[in-house]
């Protein structure tokens, strides 16, 4: 193998598994260390910089970082990254002095944000400090998009939502609420310098089965129903409820029904339990509230008497793997009939923009999605950028923030007459030694073997009685500290300097995870089997040195490294050093000065 180029920003970025997996590339270990030092405000601000909504995300994030966490591989359970974000938000002090300054004098450029969801809000936050004038339009009576209209209060209390939404709006957004956008042409006629479309994926899917038309007044589309609940138009549901679907929306629908007076609630899913779209913790929470989830039951027919819904007939299937894909085949057993008085349909959403005329130069593909450049998020109309759910279909809040940072850079480049795709600032990496003394590091290198700590929940009866009672209580400072100690500090990198190494083997012998091997060089596949312990996680890189005096190379498998620093402590020549990698992900804020 060729020697590893550690100055390629992606190399060490990949080692920080959580940060790499986070769409907004939040520097996770950095804020976790601050939490352990009780520096909650700084921890909060690091999050706010990268993901814009730490208090909201600390409760609701989809957490792609957690399955990626190195701790899953060295032990089993990841660090509770998401819940630690909430610790920072819950315990922070006054943040005003850390906030970016918004100039009184505007730069003369006017930007329209369509929709007031997380994507638009984050674009506003990035652009305001550079003097842009921001007008934001939304049909809802307040900002936040689906964070306000969909995510129920028992998961995301209103005050938490409003604090972070208002923070941005109060930076100087001209918010135009209760504004239904019906024509893109009209918007273009207002002659803004650029447009950001952040209108989400607001149309819930429906299912056309026998009886559908007849029972329509007993069926609600999940996201429409949830938004009616959020805005207080719906305050109760009665009788037996069936929730159809297996994603987030289904989980929120069933738990909300359970709180609004349903006699019984059943979730019925077409697919198998393991492949449901809902996150594991959402399924666990629903089941903990006594809601049954029935899997492998595709619906066949709505049974009614003169338009009055009686129940639903479901078939029975089983998953079979064919050519690496799951297929569902009938089991041959008799159909199941489940009585129901109301059905909540939660089988998916679409990004749907009927209000965008198709003759404005904005191209749509065969799935009716806008054609967008992945790097710049620019549409085929140069003034129009997309982000959040409206760009590539329904995702989540953290993706909305990530898109927003990209789009804000593009809009800024575009307004300066530069090319949003090719003039983007590059990523970079800085390496800073953490050595403080012979055996002293500026981070807590010692490995903490404790198991993941469990977040306490509110009393079940109390939370089922009141939809506003938040179910998760969050970690207190003590649990927060303990959980923070589980972080392996994967951003403190083992950096190797060939010319200092005397090949004494001290690092090989001390490494608790058998990461390091000195061996003759070979192609990667061969090297992976020739190491002290086989390197079977192919996505994890091998760090390979240049040729050493014994004509061998040093190979380090990054996979299971605990970042404990023992290799560097035992190295007599400092050929190993522990250096913090700071990954610079371009953000508009760096242009603000």
């Amino acid at each position, binding site marked *: 193998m060729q020697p590893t180029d550690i100055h390629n920003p992606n190399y060490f970025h990949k080692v920080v598994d959580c940060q790499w997996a986070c769409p907004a590339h939040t520097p996770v270990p950095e804020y976790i260390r601050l939490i352990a030092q009780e520096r909650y405000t700084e921890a909060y601000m690091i999050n706010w910089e990268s993901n814009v909504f730490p208090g909201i995300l600390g409760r609701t994030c989809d957490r792609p970082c957690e399955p990626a966490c190195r701790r899953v*591989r*060295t*032990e089993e359970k990841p660090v509770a990254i998401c819940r630690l974000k909430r610790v920072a938000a819950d315990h922070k002090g006054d943040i005003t002095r850390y906030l970016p300054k918004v100039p009184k004098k505007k730069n003369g450029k006017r930007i329209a944000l369509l929709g007031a969801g997380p994507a638009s809000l984050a674009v506003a936050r990035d652009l305001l400090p550079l003097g842009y004038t921001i007008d934001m339009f939304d049909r809802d009576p307040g900002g936040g998009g689906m964070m306000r209209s969909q995510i129920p209060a028992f998961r995301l209390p209103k005050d938490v939502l409003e604090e972070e939404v208002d923070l941005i709006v109060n930076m100087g957004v001209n918010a135009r609420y209760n504004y239904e956008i019906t024509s893109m042409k009209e918007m273009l006629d207002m002659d803004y310098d650029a447009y950001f479309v952040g209108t989400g994926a607001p149309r819930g899917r429906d299912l056309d089965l026998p009886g559908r038309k007849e029972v329509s007044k007993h069926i609600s589309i999940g996201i429409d129903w949830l938004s009616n609940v959020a805005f207080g138009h719906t305050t109760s549901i009665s009788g037996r409820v069936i929730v159809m679907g297996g994603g987030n929306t289904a989980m929120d629908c069933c738990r909300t029904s359970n709180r609004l007076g349903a006699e019984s609630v059943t979730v019925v899913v077409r697919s198998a339990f393991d492949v449901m779209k809902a996150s594991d913790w959402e399924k666990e929470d629903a089941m903990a509230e006594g809601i049954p989830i029935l899997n492998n039951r595709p619906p066949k027919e709505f049974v009614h008497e003169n338009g009055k819904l009686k129940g639903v007939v479901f078939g029975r299937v089983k998953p079979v793997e064919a050519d690496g894909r799951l297929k569902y085949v009938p089991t041959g057993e008799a159909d199941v009939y489940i009585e129901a008085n109301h059905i909540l349909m939660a089988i998916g959403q679409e990004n749907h923009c009927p209000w965008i005329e198709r003759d404005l130069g904005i191209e749509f593909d065969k799935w009716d999605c806008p054609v967008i450049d992945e790097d710049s998020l620019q549409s085929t109309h140069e003034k129009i950028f997309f982000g959040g759910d409206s760009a590539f279909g329904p995702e989540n809040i953290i993706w909305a923030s990530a898109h927003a940072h990209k789009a804000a850079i593009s809009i800024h480049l575009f307004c300066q007459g530069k090319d949003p795709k090719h003039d983007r600032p590059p990523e970079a990496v800085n390496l800073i030694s953490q050595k403080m003394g*012979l*055996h002293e590091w500026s981070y807590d*290198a*010692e*490995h903490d*073997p404790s198991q993941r700590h469990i977040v306490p929940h509110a009393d079940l009866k109390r939370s089922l009685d009141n939809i506003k009672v938040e179910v998760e209580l969050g970690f207190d400072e003590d649990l927060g500290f303990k959980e923070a100690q589980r972080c392996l500090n994967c951003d403190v990198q083992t950096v190797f300097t060939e010319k200092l190494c*005397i*090949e*004494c*083997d*001290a690092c*090989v*012998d*001390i490494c*608790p*995870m*058998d990461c390091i091997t000195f061996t003759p060089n070979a192609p990667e596949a061969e090297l992976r089997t020739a190491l002290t*312990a*086989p390197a*079977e996680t192919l996505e994890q890189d091998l760090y390979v040195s240049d040729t050493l*005096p*014994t004509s061998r190379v040093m190979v380090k498998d990054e996979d*299971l490294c*605990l970042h*404990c*620093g*023992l290799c560097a*402590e*035992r*190295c*007599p*020549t400092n050929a190993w050093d522990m250096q913090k990698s700071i990954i610079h992900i371009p953000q508009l804020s760096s242009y603000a000065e």
Partner: protein
Amino acid sequence: MTFVPKPKARHPLLKTNEIGLTRRDYEAIVSTLCAGCGHDSVSAAVIQACHELSIPPHQFAKVSGIGCSSKTPSYFLGNAHGFNSVHGRMPSIATGAYLANKELKYIGISGDGDSASIGLGQFAHIIRRKVDMCYIVDNNGTYGLTKGQFSATNDRGSTSKRGVPNLYAPIDLVSLAIQLGASFVARSFSGDKQQLIPLIKAAVLHKGFAFIDVISPCVMFNNHEGSTKSYSHVRNHTEPVVDANLIMPRDEIAVEYEEGTTISVSMHDGSKLQLRKLSDSYEPDDRVSALTYVQQAQEEGEIVTGLLFLEEDAVDCHDILGTSDTPFNGLEQESLCPRAEKLEQINESLR
């Protein structure tokens, strides 16, 4: 020196041996020696060798004298028996322990100061007495623990850290051991575990006195330019003459060497020791020719390594003395402490 304990976490794919233990189960506390000390590599090699032998750690006894080297039994086989004796006196302790219990596997760790200076007399006599053990000298040419004086194995002309040459000729422990009747004599280098580990395994299984001289650089006092025991000098001047490869009864014989170059020796536990000659003129089963070869190479400044001498079917001191096969701790009070009448009988028979 490291203050942080080595984490218990381990690689999930770490191999387990025949008795279900991983290499980590053969470790002990973290070393307090200087970072980079060759002795730590020897400890790591002992750990690996004992793990591969699938012998439970508590069936080993570690014995040592005084010195950085003699401290190392604390850093391997944490669950073994051990005795850290006084300077140069490990052989007496080892002999006593072996006489009391021949069922344990004995690993002695000593230094060049411990064995070639103050303990040279004891070293000579444990060889002569044929105690069944694996005796390792971590040979760094210096008194590491007392901060870098030349030891008796330091080569003439090799310089101290300050550039002062050593005026005396070295004692070569390998030559001594061959001469004094050791039945297994090897030399290796702490920086070459591939060679060292099989040697330790074979030495542990060998019945009789097995000696391994391991050149083990002292990074603090004897790893500079001008030293003949530095990592780079040793790497550039070693000449491996016989490779040893221990084949356990359950192992498949993976490599078949060319006819005539290998010698296959059956060990008394059923495993096989394969010796591969890397030098045509080397005769590892002939004391005189082995000795000549080793000494000639030394004259030329070359360090021959590998299994340098092996005598099959060796006897040990229990065989010679006809002493009890059962360890003392397994004997009844009656046989351990015969009554006065028995003494009377013995005295009578001698009158």
